[in-house]
């Protein structure tokens, strides 16, 4: 805890911020100069984005009195790339995306504030659990089939993916319910909750998100129990369940038949993956230039396939920089867990980092055929409001662990365990 208690009022983040702003300015100039006339709306969007970054950082330093904003810097870097991609498509995408980033940032601050006190977080676990299951059920009823999955709800001009919002709740419920009391009842409750989430996602045929939830469940269970045997047992049971489901519903396996055979099925099941590989390798290390790519003509190029688009137009170096950014977020999470005031924060930070890393892997390795294609988004970068809000929301858990907030009053679980430790 010593480190976080040191106050470092000067704004050291400034170098990073200047470099990042230069990068984003270059991106903005590339996008805006691609058209014959200067699109003023895009100018406002980019300058607003860069201004928002600076304002956030400055207020952050002023309020917290310290300089630990690496996490936000990474998130802004990634969001900026996503915004650039959206703006290179059209103005509408850019406007929607900047609104999404704004909402994401608000969600981030909001979650930071409510989980500041572990007791509030614990109190929220029942409403969050019930609300998230209800959301998924309503999703199943109201859903509109998009690209083979039922995970979209349309309300007026807006469409959103409830499963994305549920991800944020899932971590909270998991960490809070298990942190509170590691009793059999709380475990059973949590398992029932997790099963219903994963099951509902399965019914929506959103296997990618179902997998992310399952993975996070395992991670939370491990963090809480530390029992590797149990984890293996759960995985084995899940595997058997998966085999059973696939044998009863062969169409599920059919969705993955192109896996590792994409070149033989390059105009059927392997269409998206082969196009990602073809165009991302066309870009070389430095890219063909924003707007000059061809992957943008392929379905979902700004959402699921955005990594390929970045590689083609901005180059492999920036593409891989995006990947390494997530590794940095994860490293930050471990460090933050080490400084965290309570086990709750350690669990949320680790499960949030794991969730982000796992979703990133499913996305990037899915579209490049290292893993089966499941159609999940690239956090922070893919176009889409729900995904952006969820990414920032999850990030808040990592930040909360490392945030130099005051120690909350010790909660029951900490006391209990201390007693246990003493007894042992």
């Amino acid at each position, binding site marked *: 805890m010593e480190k976080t208690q040191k106050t470092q009022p000067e704004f050291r983040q400034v170098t990073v911020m200047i470099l990042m702003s230069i990068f984003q300015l270059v991106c903005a100039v590339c996008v805006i100069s691609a058209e014959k006339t200067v699109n003023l709306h895009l100018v406002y969007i980019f300058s607003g984005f860069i201004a928002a970054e600076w304002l956030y950082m400055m207020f952050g330093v002023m309020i917290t009195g310290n300089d630990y904003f690496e996490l936000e810097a990474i998130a802004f870097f990634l969001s900026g790339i996503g915004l650039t991609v959206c703006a290179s498509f059209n103005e509408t995408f850019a406007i929607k995306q900047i609104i999404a980033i704004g909402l994401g940032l608000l969600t981030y601050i909001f979650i930071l504030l409510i989980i500041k006190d572990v007791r509030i977080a614990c109190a929220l676990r029942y409403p969050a659990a019930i609300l998230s299951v209800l959301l998924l059920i309503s999703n199943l009823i109201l859903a509109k089939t998009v690209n083979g999955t039922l995970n979209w709800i349309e309300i007026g001009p807006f469409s959103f993916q409830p499963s994305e919002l549920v991800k944020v709740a899932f971590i909270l419920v998991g960490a809070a319910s298990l942190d509170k009391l590691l009793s059999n009842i709380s475990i059973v409750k949590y398992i029932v909750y997790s099963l219903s989430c994963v099951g509902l996602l399965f019914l929506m045929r959103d296997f990618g998100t179902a997998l992310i939830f399952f993975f996070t469940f395992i991670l939370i269970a491990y963090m809480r129990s530390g029992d590797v045997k149990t984890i293996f047992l759960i995985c084995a049971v899940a595997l058997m369940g998966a085999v059973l489901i696939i044998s009863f519903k062969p169409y599920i396996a059919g969705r993955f038949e192109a896996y590792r055979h994409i070149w033989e099925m390059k*105009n059927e099941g392997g269409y998206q993956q082969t196009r990602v590989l073809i165009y991302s*390798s*066309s870009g070389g*290390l*430095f890219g063909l230039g924003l707007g*000059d790519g061809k992957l943008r003509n392929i379905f979902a190029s700004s959402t699921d396939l955005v990594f390929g688009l970045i590689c083609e137009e901005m180059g492999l170096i920036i593409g891989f920089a995006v990947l390494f950014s997530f590794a940095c977020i994860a490293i930050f999470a471990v460090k933050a867990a080490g400084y965290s005031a*309570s086990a709750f924060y*350690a669990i949320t930070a*680790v499960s949030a980092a794991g969730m982000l890393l796992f979703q990133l892997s499913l996305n990037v390795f899915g579209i*490049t055929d290292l893993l089966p294609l499941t159609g999940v988004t690239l956090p922070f970068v893919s176009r889409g409001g729900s995904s952006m809000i969820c990414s920032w929301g999850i990030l808040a858990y990592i930040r909360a662990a490392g945030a130099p907030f005051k120690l909350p009053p010790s909660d029951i679980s900490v006391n209990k365990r201390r007693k246990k430790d003493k007894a042992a």
Partner: protein
Amino acid sequence: MKKTMKRAHIVYVLIAAFLCGVIFLGVEYALNAPTWATDRANTHIFTRGIMTTAGKILDRNGEILAETKNGKRVFSDSPGTRKACLHIVGDTSGFISTGTHSFYRSQLSGYNFFDGIYGLKHGGRESNITLNIDSEANRIAFESFGEYNGTIAVCNYKTGELVCSVSKPTYDVNNVPEKLRTSPEYEGVFLDKAVSGIYTPGSIMKIVTAACALENIPDIGSRKFECKGEFSTSDGTIICTDKHGTISFQQAFNQSCNCAFGQIALELGAEKLTSTAEALGFNRSLSAKEIPLVKSRFHPKASSKADTAWAGIGQSTTYVNPIHFLSVMNAIANGGTGFSPDRIKTMGFAGEFVGRIPETMVKMNPETAAELKTMLRNAVRDKYGDDRFPDLKMCGKTGTAEIEGKKSTSVFVGFSSREDLPLAVICFAEEAGWGSGAATRISNAVLQYFLKYYA
């Protein structure tokens, strides 16, 4: 609490697994990116699988054989050049797999790992390919073939540059015949017979038999052979073209005497013949620089005397690939080192400065090469006559390959021994009938062109 902190290190395992995936992905890119980037589905280069945007293909004199104009692939203006260079230049759909369009599509796209295809998109020169081929020589060769099908290839034996290569049947890419896929007249039209064809060699195989004899029978030069027009072994009869009487090794070579060469082949035996043939590249997967060749085959049955004798005179189950055999001629002409015929002069990012390094395809004992060279020179001077190849100081051997149910293939292999015209040639004229007329005529026409403009 502390335990939970420790468990947080599981994230390091996740990061490690993730980084393994990233490294795997990076390695996959490093290994496969050129293939991926030049896949026919890449709409930067191809439109519905047809190559539309790529670098220029130029002949050795800078003549444009193919280029992209306004998003379309445009070929040479002359229909004759288009037809004569079809198999070298290749079609844009990739039916001719050894055509430059298809085989060197990665280089034509200007792809490199650092820049991707940026150069192509922005008109860089690194996507151009300059060939060693002289398109005018190709056109002359094409016209000399007349109605015959077949192939001719001419190579500089001192450098390995492939300066002329034609395969027939051919067609005009700007005016694709409707019956291309159905009519028997276009059978094998997508095959560059020089690299992807194999022919029964006929008497040119006697060069290999002679090479084996020179290396294994010390007194072969002073031997006499008896030819009575035919020659019987225990399990078959070899028929000769004539009754040559008592003749020397050189005379037998000049007259292409089957009886004499049958006897020599029998004396050497299948094993020694095969070992010489294999040393010269038979039964081996060879490639002319990057382009893979169809294997030349030599498999005499050791158990059958007649089969061994027929194999030694180029019939039976012996087949040669034209470019491979051209390299054998390169070796004879070039003191034992037979360069790989290379159609590319320059390509790629630094191609103009780096150039191409000649590769050896066939190696031969220099003494054998020198003796064969003398024999081939004698054969032209004493048998075929220098007036068939004016001013060329030609060395060579003709052949007639008999094919069941068809007229014979007329064959000629040779090279000019002029210092200023180091060119070797191989020509197969299909169904051109008995005798070597067609192949020698076509070869001479092409070499005369080179004599006029290069010597």
